[in-house]
């Protein structure tokens, strides 16, 4: 075996958005290092959130690609299609399928997520026509079947299920939506917001069954013909789509010779380091710290995975100085039928001192969580998507939102005008694109409600020890320590 082929300074397992972003970032920062991506995925990285548009035939396969075809070769990133069987962390090598060893200098686990699927004990789940929608292959299968389907059942109550229901309605298929609870998105929305989504989908034509679980899937000569519910009702259908969420793909981390700390995902610190030296994790598989609540959980969203990929790339290239201090607050935006959903920060955070405001006018719903005069969480459901990244910026930079509180509540805030009023840099002072230094951050002029002295860094909260120093006064600093500050205020 060629000695050069079985080792690399940087090895990335997984070819999703986190993996490919890390590889490209590492290449940019370390032009001489050998970078290898190992994946069992049989296609280049794709825009997975756009798969619903693909299911509606509004996109073709070529339009799903994240990067122009051939970028790996152009950037000298070697891709190996193989399965990683185990990690020998002490000797720093992987065992690929066929017992092929592969040595690494630094390793990134970006294995993504796997669908939850149906309970293993549920009868009939292997009939033809029962699909779990997760990967491109599943959507290709769905598109091939759609012309022959008149009636379908969707199981699941999350945003993925809502999007799937809308896809089926788009094709004119009679769609039954089975909800375990009273309203959808029960983890992201409160009862009022959930009811609004439910009503919107009902108006769109979905047949919604609340408080129902499937106890059996029935088929005829190997093909699904219906589902039986716990209310002893049979719903006939030619297609059952399972959208019951996903979980981090941690199976490989369980086959590591040194135990990797896990809690809902692989635990990582703010620089995406695991507890094992030279092993990092990013994307849906990594449990990262919420800077507002200090709790570790995976952030299975497209934008977060890309951001983590950029941090991981800098770490793999031995350039921790170029990482951003923190990933920022969580942020999720999508369309749910005719409704636009935005969740930024923690709009459901309940704690003494946190004020919650809601508004249900104009056929929408907004929920704001405020701490003193700062926004710490924003939920918006409505017919217009607000400037979602500007709302995220409002939360992260800790500006006072009193002057725009009414507009935020009504969902028609003009963030551009507000940031301009906060003396954001005028156009003449903006750095030109080609002359922008690496990772330059524009000056932040907003008022921080809490001073750095009031906000001690949380020591020992990360799996590998204290977090790295964050420049005092930086925007991320305030939320980094909000939770500890709230706890301190509670102490006598």
């Amino acid at each position, binding site marked *: 075996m060629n000695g050069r082929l079985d080792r690399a300074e940087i090895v990335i397992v997984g070819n999703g958005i986190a993996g490919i972003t890390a590889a490209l970032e590492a290449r940019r920062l370390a032009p001489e290092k050998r970078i290898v991506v190992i994946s069992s995925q049989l296609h280049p990285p794709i825009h997975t959130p756009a798969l619903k548009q693909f299911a509606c035939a509004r996109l073709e396969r070529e339009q799903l*690609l994240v990067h122009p075809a051939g970028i790996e070769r152009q950037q000298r990133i070697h891709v190996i299609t193989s399965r990683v069987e185990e990690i020998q962390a002490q000797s720093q090598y992987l065992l690929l399928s066929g017992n092929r060893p592969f040595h690494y200098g630094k390793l990134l686990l970006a294995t993504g997520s796997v669908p939850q699927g149906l309970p293993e004990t549920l009868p009939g789940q292997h009939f033809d026509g029962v699909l779990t929608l997760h990967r491109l292959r599943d959507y290709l299968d769905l598109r091939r079947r759609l012309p022959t389907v008149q009636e379908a059942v969707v199981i699941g109550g999350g945003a993925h299920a809502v999007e799937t229901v809308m896809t089926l309605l788009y094709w004119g298929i009679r769609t039954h939506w089975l909800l375990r609870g009273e309203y959808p998105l029960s983890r992201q929305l409160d009862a009022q917001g959930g009811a609004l989504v439910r009503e919107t989908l009902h108006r769109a034509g979905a047949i919604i069954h609340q408080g129902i679980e499937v106890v059996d899937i029935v088929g005829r000569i190997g093909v699904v013909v219906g589902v039986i519910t716990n209310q002893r009702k049979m719903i006939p259908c030619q297609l059952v789509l399972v959208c019951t969420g996903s979980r981090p793909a941690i199976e490989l981390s369980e086959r590591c010779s040194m135990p990797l700390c896990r809690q809902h995902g692989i635990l990582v610190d703010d620089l995406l380091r695991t507890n094992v030296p030279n092993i990092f994790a990013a994307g849906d598989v990594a449990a990262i710290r919420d800077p507002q609540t200090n709790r570790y959980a995976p952030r299975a969203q497209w934008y977060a995975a890309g951001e983590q990929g950029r941090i991981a790339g800098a770490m793999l290239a031995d350039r921790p100085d170029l990482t951003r201090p923190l990933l920022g607050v969580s942020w999720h935006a999508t369309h749910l039928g005719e409704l636009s959903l935005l969740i930024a920060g923690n709009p459901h955070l309940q704690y003494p001192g946190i004020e919650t405001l809601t508004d249900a006018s104009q056929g929408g719903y907004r929920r704001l969580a405020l701490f003193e005069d700062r926004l710490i969480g924003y939920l918006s459901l409505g017919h217009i998507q607000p400037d979602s*990244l500007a709302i995220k910026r409002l939360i992260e930079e800790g500006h006072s939102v009193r002057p725009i509180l009414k507009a935020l509540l009504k969902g028609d805030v003009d963030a551009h005008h507000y940031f301009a009023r906060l003396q954001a840099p005028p*156009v003449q002072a903006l750095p030109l694109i080609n002359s922008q230094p690496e990772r330059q951050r524009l000056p932040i002029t907003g008022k921080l409600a809490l001073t750095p002295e009031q906000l001690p860094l949380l020591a020992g909260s990360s799996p590998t020890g204290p977090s790295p120093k964050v420049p005092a006064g930086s925007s991320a600093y305030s939320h980094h320590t909000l939770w500890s500050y709230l706890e301190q205020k509670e102490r006598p």
Partner: protein
Amino acid sequence: MRKLLRMFAPPPAGLHKTVSHIAQEINACIGCNECLLACPALSEPITIDVLNHATVHGPITESVAHFARSCYQCGACVPPCPVGLHRDAMMLWLKIRLLQE
């Protein structure tokens, strides 16, 4: 007096988005293509990966350059975006890149 003048002064001129925010928007793009489907100025097929790549730092192909010049900032691309991004602002930066080159 200066305070009074400041009250009536127009807000500082600023582009819709700064370059760092444009880069952030590109990173948040989910590639659903809805902005391009809504665009009245798009005359030849362009994929979103090529357009995103060209907007901030990648090479600008002839078709992307033609599209950027054709864009007349009508804003039709903004409402269809599921994640609330501003393709019009991204196109503005692309126009600036073209001017720089």
